[in-house]
């Protein structure tokens, strides 16, 4: 690795230990039971009763937990002494009660991510309830009217970063549509030895602090040799003119993070068991705070059968990108008595989470190398030209001289797609505006285009059973995902949460949310309390999700039925983006002219 070249050997070994994590005393193995999961730092796996909780009554205690994942002791925020929090198994149709007690010295909360439940059960302090003070217990009680894979996490400050997240699996009343012989939850997350408060402050001080992949003098020389001096100069000048960095793929990288599967480091190698020939359902949850993962299992085809808990028309791929807070259920059919590596590399290729599927514990397969680090392209800047899917290296852009991210208005050929702008978007807190955002639902995204593998895109996802509301949307609400990378400010339509008014939805209405990503980062946007039904390029129903990733420079529309009265959170699920202002309140209220929903 380039970045460790100048480090003395001692640095390198501690660095490797940090990236790979500690192996721990034992392997974390799941699979003795039909429902695999497992693995707190103490690696209690098979036969451990606390790792999975099921029924209708739950007692969850939130407290501090001493952990050592990297060789450096740290303190995690855990539920019932577990990192990740226990797997909760519910049944569709049950009314459940969860008593959540706070043993921390700070307030806490739990949000049931993707659950369609009353506003006062949603767990967002300040919107749903007052939060759970130290020593207090809050009783969540609601009826479970859906099924599939979901997750839960804290909605208080940075507790999600320090470990307060866990999976939820809800058994459908009429049985699973897609039969499997065995299943495992694969919860992706990240651990950091740094204090999240420090990370946030650091991003405000120097937003590229964690990027150790910036372009150097030797990159320039290499490109000049390969592409010629003039195009290379033009490329560098274009990016410099915009004051943007094509290597800015993640705000927090493997420099700070050790990536985890079910709480195990890559060295810890969480292992899920299978028998040859079985159909194994893997419930992938991205429970990280700031990471996108590109997931594959070399040697196995992945058949995606559900997205965000909702069954989809099965689609078979080699790889999928999972945004923060997104969920995909995948069925694999290992035919051989061998180990398979679950490989989840971070979007910026600064690290990976790794686990193993194997017929027995202790086996392992090769871990593939990280893919080459991609660069952002014109498409990711919202400059259109419909180049999605084309092989665009950074160099292609250098031939397009005079592309000024700030002053290229009116160039679009699709005039209808030119975003409407609020004055705040021209203000000091927004550093870029997409000129010609494209829908690009079939674009696998930066770093996955033309990589020789079949990669899942949103256009592959077709939720079974149609939308939850057959009505056409009565109105459009357009919001822009904006920010200032250099000063680490994030917002909707140029306004931070503190500067914004709530978005008001009329109770019962069907509306169409249009998101335009003006920034050069991916944003997984999560609306609490209501489903988002993504619209295809042809205006048809595509997929129902709770968290919708909008790629850089992308324009995406989805329908929402405002059938959930109350105050709800609407935000980017990248934790530090949310904290920096990419958050809105959505207020669903009865209007004077309209009655109840149909």
């Amino acid at each position, binding site marked *: 690795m380039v*970045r460790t*070249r*100048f480090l003395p050997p001692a640095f390198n070994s501690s660095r490797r230990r940090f990236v790979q994590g500690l192996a721990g005393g034992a392997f974390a193995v799941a699979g003795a039971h039909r429902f695999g999961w497992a693995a707190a730092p103490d690696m209690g796996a098979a036969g451990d009763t606390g790792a999975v909780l099921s029924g209708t009554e739950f007692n969850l205690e939130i407290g501090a937990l001493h952990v050592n994942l990297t060789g450096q002791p740290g303190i995690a925020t855990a539920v019932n002494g577990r990192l990740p929090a226990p797997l909760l198994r519910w049944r569709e149709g049950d009314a459940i009660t969860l008593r959540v007690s706070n043993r921390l010295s700070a*307030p806490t909360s739990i949000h049931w991510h993707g659950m*369609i*439940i009353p*506003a*006062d059960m949603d767990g*967002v302090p*300040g919107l749903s*309830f007052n*939060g759970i003070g130290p020593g207090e217990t809050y009783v969540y009680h609601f009826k479970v*009217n859906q099924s599939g894979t979901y997750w839960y996490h804290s*909605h208080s*400050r940075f507790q999600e970063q320090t470990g307060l997240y866990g999976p939820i699996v809800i058994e459908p009343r009429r049985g699973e549509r897609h039969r499997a012989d065995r299943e495992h939850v694969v919860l992706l997350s990240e651990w950091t030895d740094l204090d999240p408060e420090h990370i946030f402050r650091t991003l405000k*001080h*120097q937003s590229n*602090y964690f990027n150790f992949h910036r372009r*150097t*003098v030797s990159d320039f020389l290499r490109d000049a040799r390969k592409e010629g001096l003039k195009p290379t100069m033009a490329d560098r000048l274009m990016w*410099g*003119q915009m*004051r943007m960095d094509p290597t800015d793929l993640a705000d927090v990288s493997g420099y700070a993070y050790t990536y985890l599967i079910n709480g195990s480091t890559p060295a810890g190698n969480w292992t899920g068991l299978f028998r040859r020939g079985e159909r194994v359902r893997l419930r992938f949850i991205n429970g990280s705070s700031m990471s996108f993962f590109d997931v594959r299992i070399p040697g196995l085809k992945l058949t995606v059968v559900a997205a965000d808990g909702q069954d989809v028309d099965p689609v078979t791929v080699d790889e999928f990108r999972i945004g923060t807070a997104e969920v995909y259920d995948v069925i694999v059919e290992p035919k051989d008595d061998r180990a398979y590596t679950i490989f989840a590399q971070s979007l910026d290729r600064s690290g990976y989470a790794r686990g193993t599927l194997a017929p027995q514990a202790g086996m392992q397969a090769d871990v593939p190398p990280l893919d080459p680090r991609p660069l952002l392209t014109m498409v990711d800047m919202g400059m259109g030209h419909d180049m999605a899917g084309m092989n665009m290296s950074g160099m292609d852009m250098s031939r397009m001289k005079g592309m000024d991210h*700030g002053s290229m208005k009116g160039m679009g050929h699709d005039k209808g797609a030119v975003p409407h*702008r*609020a*004055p*705040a*978007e*021209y203000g*000091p807190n927004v*550093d870029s505006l997409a000129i010609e955002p494209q829908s690009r639902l079939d674009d696998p995204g930066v770093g996955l285009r033309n990589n020789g593998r079949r990669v899942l895109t949103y256009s592959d996802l077709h*939720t*079974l*059973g*149609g*939308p*939850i509301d*057959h*009505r*056409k949307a*009565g*109105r459009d609400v*357009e919001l822009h995902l904006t920010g200032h990378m*250099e*000063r680490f400010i994030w917002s909707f*339509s140029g*306004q*931070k*949460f*503190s500067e914004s008014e709530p978005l008001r939805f*009329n109770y019962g209405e069907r509306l169409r949310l249009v998101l335009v990503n003006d920034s050069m980062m991916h944003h997984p946007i999560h609306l609490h309390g209501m*489903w988002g039904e993504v619209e295809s390029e042809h205006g048809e129903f595509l997929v129902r999700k709770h968290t919708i990733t909008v790629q850089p420079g992308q324009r995406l529309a989805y329908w929402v039925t405002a059938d959930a*009265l*109350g*105050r709800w959170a609407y935000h980017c699920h990248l934790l530090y983006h949310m*904290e*920096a202002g990419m*958050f809105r309140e959505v207020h669903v209220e009865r209007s004077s002219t309209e009655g109840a929903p*149909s």
Partner: protein
Amino acid sequence: MTPRPRLILFCGFFGVMAASFALGQESQDPASHHDHSSSQVSAPQPPAAPTPADAQTPSEAAHVPPDPPQHPMGDMPYHEMSALMQMDDAARTAMVLFDQLEWRNTTEGNAVAWDAEAWYGGDVNKVWLRSEGERVGGTTQGARADLLWDHTFARWWSVQAGGRQDFGTGPGRTWAAIGVQGLAPYWFNTEATFYVGEQGRTAMRLKSEYELLFTQRLILQPEAEANLYGKADPARQLGSGLSDLEIGLRLRYEVRREFAPYVGVVWARSFGGTADRIRESGGNPSDVQFVAGLRAWF
């Protein structure tokens, strides 16, 4: 990186900014903006009434909307809500940066020089403290401190206003300060400050720096700084016009981002009346210095 092109750049920049502000205002009806400042919301229309052709979907039949909250939360002011959420995007932060804290070998002997700044505030408004100077042979020279209010007015630029105090050799001078700082195109970190002092004194300071990465940790920082004075100040050995120009090249190694030792070379040149005074006292107005120091921030 001479002062003149920088100034032209600023003027051009202000022009562009003014134009884009004007455009932004024009494109928006002020009345509707007030109502829908948070988003672009089109006028609500009642949902289309279901027709027999609109068959209910299986998902629609299965979907159960949530009950209304039994204990709804009322609206509350932002500060109350942000306290409950423990989330505040308007929170203030602070930073202290010793950009240069270094030893120099000058013609007058060994010197210790500093160039540091600190700020405290939110995303748009900050209090900014900036100081630089040199200690040579037990005396402080060319030292100054600016205390400024910093207001970000454009994507890449802040306006700064406040005061400056000069100290060290010669009588102290107090100035009112106004300037801009920001990130010019092509990643030039740039500051331009204009000063007005007592007895009709005026001054200007221009500074620009750049970072060139040899590796992710080995970084070359070229920097240029110029000082100009409206009239001579013999008591502080200053002539009028361009007084001094300093061009430095510092190569640092970021052990951590916040902690980077460096070595470098600085070419310091005095001009006009300032140079004359140095020559009169037997000095050389042009000096090449080796420097070694530490760049640190927290």
